[in-house]
């Protein structure tokens, strides 16, 4: 027996996760990718050797999704093992079994949902297309499986790990795909309209108007439209086999009728309005209770569950009492009207009107008590470890024991991260595996979550220090960097995810360029109107700065005049060819800002009924945000810094507005 390093990666991450248009697409896509990875891990972990990612212990301890509790743990889609095998052929056979296991698992999930679809949505389906797509997946389509292995020779484990990484890079440069023979007779009856979630596959759904062409009556067509609405499929939406299964996975079989079970995850809308709901729990207790009662009465009404599904609350487990365990779209401004308009075309108008009539009073009562509807902004946080791959290589140089210690520390982080996100910060991790994660959070909790996660990463950092890991550049310092995107609920999820990835890449790049030991964070805001804005810095520093500005704005100690003045001056004076300190424009700006600090804040605060704490005279001491802002203005050295400060203030205003909803008073950030 000899040792081999085996490196495995599963995909396509983009099609499993990135292509989601609804929370449930994202949730089930990431769940299934994780489950396929676990199916692979179970095959590979039978072999003797050292399992690095995920460790054997981690696989044993994984809390899997069950029928009762659909909120299981996640593992990474990258697996790394040092395996003992008698020959390369034995390894090859093991890898083939592992791929088969992953494929079979996915096919089983798809078949299960296809059977459900057949019972629930027979009129909507094109069964031959569905079964052929599943068969194609079984034969090598859709699921990507990359595996490379190399023997551990005289060069030792470190060289073997490096070689395995090199081989994986090389293997992934050829992302080979198969192409079904659509022209063959067996596909003749297929509808080749593309799936909206995966352009490489045709739809498996019939459109309602297809039935019209078939001479069916109007009532039948209306029934199909209603069925689409009940299944969460928009009119005219096209879905392939995987897309349909993701959409249907949250229904259960009840007397042949589609019945939505409580979603095992908090929907995006629920996460977004979390601050407002917590504020309502304090300030509008009676009205919130009244709405919950009305919703509770309707839980068993199918017309209700079509558009207001019961769902897990962010910070509670499935069995704990929840603040608002529902999809919260109806609470947004115009939410009921939008739902009525959207669904009125497809559902039986009479029954829908009844539902909406019963709920309109409690919803409007709650809005009135809270001074208006909630803001529909949500945060998407993407985080990833810095230098972790290099640390693993360096640990391999020290031997298996060091490697095990480091992977144990990584496992600890992976275990803790979902709880930090959900229980402490009311968010939901859609993807959390190894040293990377993707999560939705209430806007006001997102910075705290990023900081807490960086704290939970400390055991990994400490282990790297304890093992004195280093590479050719010197001692290694690992950390956790992140990209945080704040956007409106209605923003396209795919674009949001792309922005989060770009922000994460930007943060990691900035960290590398500055050779910083600490993780970095880039924060982007995509407002519904106006231009995108972003700021970045070392995670704790940018987090503290935004918290400080946000607190100042919420306390009415800071206004947005500074940001406005900076942008106004930049518009007039910025010269891209002279962005240095000596630029006249920057000096003019600083002078204007300092003058504004002395006079403007007092007037503004007085106008808004706040105590005019200004940093001069004999008055009370200035608020920390005012002091910090004054210092930042003094330190301004370039237009780049000035614009960064303006962006920080603008983003902080969004944070303050959202945080104000959670507060006892309701705040009133400008």
């Amino acid at each position, binding site marked *: 027996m000899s040792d*081999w390093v085996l490196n495995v990666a599963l995909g396509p991450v983009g099609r499993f996760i990135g292509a989601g248009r609804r929370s449930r697409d994202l949730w089930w896509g990431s769940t299934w990718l994780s489950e396929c990875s676990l199916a692979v891990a179970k095959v590979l972990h039978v072999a003797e050797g050292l399992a690095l990612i995920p460790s054997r212990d981690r696989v044993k301890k994984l809390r899997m999704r069950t029928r009762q509790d659909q909120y299981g743990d996640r593992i990474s889609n990258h697996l790394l093992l040092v395996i003992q095998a008698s020959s*390369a052929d034995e*390894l*090859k056979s093991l*890898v*083939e079994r592992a*791929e088969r296991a992953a494929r079979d698992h996915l096919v089983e999930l798809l078949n299960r949902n296809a059977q459900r679809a057949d019972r629930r949505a027979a009129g909507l389906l094109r069964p031959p297309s569905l079964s052929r797509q599943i068969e194609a997946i079984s034969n*090598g389509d859709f699921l990507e*499986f*990359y*595996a*490379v*292995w*190399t*023997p551990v020779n005289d060069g030792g484990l470190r060289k073997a790990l490096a*070689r395995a990484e*090199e*081989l994986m*890079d*090389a*293997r992934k*440069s*050829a*992302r*080979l*795909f*198969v*192409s079904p*023979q*659509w*022209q063959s007779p067996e*596909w003749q009856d*297929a*509808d*080749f*309209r*593309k799936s*909206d979630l995966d*352009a*490489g*596959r*045709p739809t498996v759904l019939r459109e309602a108007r297809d039935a019209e062409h078939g001479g069916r009556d109007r009532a039948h067509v209306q029934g199909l439209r209603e069925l689409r609405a009940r299944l969460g499929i928009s009119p005219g*939406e096209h879905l392939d086999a995987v897309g349909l299964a993701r959409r249907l996975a949250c229904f259960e079989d009840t007397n042949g009728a589609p019945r939505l079970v409580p979603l095992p995850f908090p929907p995006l809308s629920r996460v977004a309005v979390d601050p407002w709901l917590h504020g309502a729990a304090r300030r509008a207790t009676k009205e919130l209770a009244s709405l919950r009662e009305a919703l509770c009465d309707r839980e068993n009404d199918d017309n209700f569950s079509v558009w207001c599904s019961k769902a897990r609350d962010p910070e509670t487990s499935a069995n704990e009492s929840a603040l608002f365990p529902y999809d919260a779209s109806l609470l947004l401004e115009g939410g009921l009207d939008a739902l009525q308009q959207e669904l009125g075309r497809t559902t039986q108008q009479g029954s829908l009107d009844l539902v909406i009539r019963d709920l309109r009073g409690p919803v409007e009562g709650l809005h009135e008590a809270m001074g208006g509807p909630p803001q529909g902004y949500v945060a998407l946080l993407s985080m990833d470890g810095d*230098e972790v*791959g*290099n640390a693993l290589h360096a640990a391999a140089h020290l031997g298996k024991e060091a490697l095990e210690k480091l992977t144990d520390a990584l496992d600890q982080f992976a275990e803790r991260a979902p709880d930090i996100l959900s229980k402490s910060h009311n968010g939901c991790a859609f993807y959390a595996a190894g040293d990377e994660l993707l999560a939705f959070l209430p806007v006001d909790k997102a910075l705290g979550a990023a900081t807490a996660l960086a704290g939970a990463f400390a055991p990994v950092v400490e282990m790297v220090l304890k093992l004195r890991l280093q*590479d*050719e*550049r010197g001692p290694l310092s690992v950390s956790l960097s992140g990209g945080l995107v704040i956007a409106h609920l*209605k*923003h*396209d999820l*795919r*674009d949001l995810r792309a922005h989060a990835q770009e922000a994460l890449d930007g943060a*990691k790049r900035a960290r*590398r360029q500055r050779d910083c030991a600490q993780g970095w964070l880039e924060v982007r805001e995509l407002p519904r109107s106006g231009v995108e804005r972003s700021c970045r810095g070392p995670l704790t520093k940018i987090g503290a700065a935004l918290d400080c500005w946000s607190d100042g704005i919420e306390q009415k100690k800071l206004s947005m005049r500074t940001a406005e003045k900076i942008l106004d001056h930049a518009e007039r004076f910025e010269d891209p060819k002279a962005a240095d300190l000596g630029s006249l424009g920057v000096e003019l700006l600083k002078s204007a800002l300092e003058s504004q600090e002395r006079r403007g804040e007092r007037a503004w605060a007085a106008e808004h009924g706040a105590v005019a704490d200004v940093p001069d005279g004999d008055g009370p001491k200035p608020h920390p945000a005012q002091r910090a802002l004054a210092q930042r203005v003094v330190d301004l050295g370039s237009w780049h810094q000035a614009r960064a400060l303006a962006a920080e203030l603008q983003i902080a205003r969004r944070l303050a507005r959202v945080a104000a909803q959670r507060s006892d008073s309701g705040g009133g950030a400008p």
Partner: protein
Amino acid sequence: MSSKVWQISPRDPVVAGDGGPMPALAVRMPNPLPPQPTLVGFVRSALVAGSGHVSKDDARALLNVQIRGPLLAAWSEGGTEPRIWVPATADAAGKPGALHRGELLKLRPGEGVDPVGSQLQYLVHVPSKHKGEKLKSPVKPLGWPADAPAFWPLEAALAWALDDLALADRWLQSMELVGARAPLRFEPRVHVALDDASGTAEAMALFSSTGWRYDDRPENEAGLLVEVNDPGGRGPPPLAVLGGEGRPSRIRTTPDGLPAFDANRYQRAVDVHAEALAQRGLFLRVQLLTPGCFGGALPPAVDGLKLVAAAVPGMQSVSGWNLQARGPRAVRRLAPAGSVYHFGPVQSAGQLLEICERLWLRPLIKGEQDRDAFLAAPGADGYALALPGISVYNFSSEG
């Protein structure tokens, strides 16, 4: 056949989606060039513009029209030769000034890859990291817009194809130094939805569509170059609609052909590697300038040369609308432009040069016409235009 080169100049941002639904908020279209079926439909429709009803026979006759392109081009004021931009190669990583080339990598004894990967004799190792730093791929020239997909000047791509990495790198860096501008930029536009019943604007129902604005300033006028071989000898109309939203493009024919094959340049490149050629042979390296329609990710053998390695960054899906059958066409999965294939080895300089000349900006495979589906052969539709080159396997890397 009558061959004409069309210069297509979009007057408004080109909106060319992938057939999927348009999101309400602006999402960048992934590719500034129209998908191949869109371009092909544009050309064939333009040829019969104004001639009334197109019968099934007319439509079948149009399948004999052969198209080579599109190539993104930009003309400087007063200049005759346009600067050609081609999709960036998939086997480069890093950034201008610090480029890393994907090297052919052979498995050592005891090593293995999964069954799909083992179809290839060599892997193309495009490094993802260098000294702990992540490397970007594809590589964008200096000054190229951050939000646009990467294109390289043809000169850089050719130098890269002929294994002259230093020259390719200088080209990518010099773009900014000589003040050359990218020929296009991303441009969103806001629209208001119309009420189906009344045909009037719906209050507050705004949405954005995104397109690619081709530079139309005289000093950097951008457009697409397409060679059209029409057996009927027809010419284009002066104006036609390219892509979605009825956006017009001006069409002119230009007396200059597509860039010509430079035999001397290739000869010099082969001469540099004469020793390797004599000892073990060189590989034919082919970079796709338009997407490849092979019924999978890999093309068949070329001139008896076996495919040994590939760098394919994923899958591009196209479909289209069959005007005769009045229905959607089946999805076709394509190897994206920029994909790289290695064939061989070739041990004769003459054979290598002959293949390179024959493949220069020509389709890698011709394919078959499907007259029932009103689908021309992939080669006639301009799929898999090749930029031929050479690659040298470094045997010392076997370790």
